[in-house]
């Protein structure tokens, strides 16, 4: 099994969009490697010819009519938004300088 370096842990934290303090990174490096060690048992199994299971009940292609129906009122839908302007949620800018 691969093991995680401090740099790897920092990279995964970036992918997961988590700011972690130094002591958190140190502890996670330790704990994640310990958990990855437990994963090693899976390598003992030959699964080359086994199909993966993503879900356990045989449900497929659940469709419904494409029709308009009542939904939440705008005020209710926006009530939990951290920042709002009229009928809109204010989102952080994702284009331009701020995202570079």
């Amino acid at each position, binding site marked *: 099994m*691969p093991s*995680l370096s401090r740099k*790897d*842990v920092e990279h*995964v*934290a*970036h*992918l*997961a*969009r*988590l*700011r*972690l303090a130094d002591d*958190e990174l140190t502890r*996670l490096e330790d*704990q*994640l490697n*310990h*958990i990855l060690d*437990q*994963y090693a*048992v*899976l390598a003992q*199994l030959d*699964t080359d010819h*086994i*199909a*993966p*299971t*993503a*879900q*356990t*009940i045989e*449900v497929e292609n*659940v469709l*419904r009519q494409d029709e308009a129906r009542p939904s*939440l009122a705008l005020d*209710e*839908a926006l*009530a*939990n*938004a*951290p*920042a709002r302007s009229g009928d809109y*949620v204010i*989102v*952080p*800018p*994702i284009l331009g300088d*701020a*995202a*570079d």
Partner: protein
Amino acid sequence: MAAGLRAGDFTASELLDAHLAAIRATDGSIHAWLDTDDAGATEQARAADARLAQARANGGTGGLVPMLGIPVGLKDLVLVRGRPATAGSRMLEGYISPYDAHITERLREQGAVIVGRTNMDEFAMGSSTEHSAWGPTRNPWDLERVPGGSSGGSAAAVAAWQVPLSIGTDTGGSIRQPAALCGIVGIKPTYGRVSRYGIVAFASSLDQIGPFGRDVRDTAMLLHAVAGRDERDSTSAALPVPDFAAELPASDDEAAASLRGVRLGLPRQYFVAGMEAGVEARIREAVAALAAAGAEIVDVDLPHTDYGLATYYIIAPAEASANLARYDGVRYGRSIRLPGADFIADYKETRGTGFGAEVKRRIMLGTYALSAGYYDAFYLKAQKVRTLIKSDFDKAFERVDALVAPTSPTVAFPLGARLDDPVAMYLSDACTLPVNMAGLPGLSVPCGLSEGLPVGLQLIGRAWDEGRLFQLGRAYEAITSGADWRQAGP
């Protein structure tokens, strides 16, 4: 309780007040509840009383649904319109549910009284309820011990007589393990049995909602009340839901007699390393009692059980890391916008300060397992092993009607004992999480005490076979109704 309401021995309002008083009296030390909705619940209880009075005036209460007027606690991840729901996390501090979950609607329609929100491990990740952002719940049997988790508040509330019924969710054991550790009944239904619309998601191929009760009949009644197809959760099954409680035998004798000729499998791999001797003794005694009452006990092998833990701790964190990506501080929930910073930094700050240690650990694990270069080695591999685990169960069910096993390898452990050792904490669910991976129903019923603390017996069934599990659980209650340990309580 339902009979008392119908007979007019007490009103739904009196019943609610008695339970609210019990919560006020004992919850300072247990902390099973995050809040109670006294005003809303009082209104629901009055409405139930009005329905009862009307039914009496119209000639009888026979046609009323059994949940009418019964107080229920909901785990803090079930949406109740106009009420907070935090999933035990600071990330959802201040969130007010804009709509009802499917099960909330169902309970309202049937006139149940929704008492409030019960404590839980953050985002249902944990086996002790110590990972709640709002502080741990304590086990009513011993306040220095955990109630199990993640639905520890729901289990403790029922065990402490604060509420007769409650709702939890189970992704890897989060209903059955706390039921076992608190000495009550809990079932994880078949995947797809209950709609998850309006429930905060953890791992979508594993999560399932289920009830807690103090006995099998009550638990069966609540499952029937909330189960069934809902088109807003496309994984909910369009299958008929039996009236589980009504189908149970009326008398102990009849229940005990139903064990004759039943074939029960005893999976040898479930007597795991690290299992406490007292727990193993209680399970073997329970199996012997079932055999003495006429059940045929068959040794079965579930050879891939030992791979369950590793498989689960790849699949569940991977799905969680995807599900929890929605907490970005933009549309709802915690939101930190740093002056002058870009949006990535805002996300990181919001998530880094909003999630607790266990949730971050699982997001990190899941993100790593899904990341470029590791997907095949981890996630795909785990999904293949999941197939092997499921086929173990399929083979066993060719020979037996149900499986009997321990629910948890240990009794309730002391607060803090496993908090710094994630792998030890994860072992709490070694006997329950394979059942989630196969999508099967699992019922935990109390089967005695070890060191003065409750032990749970797990009954595992074929998909959609909850009715049989309730029959077996009821039969086990019947054959042990005179046991000394049944007199013990928290």
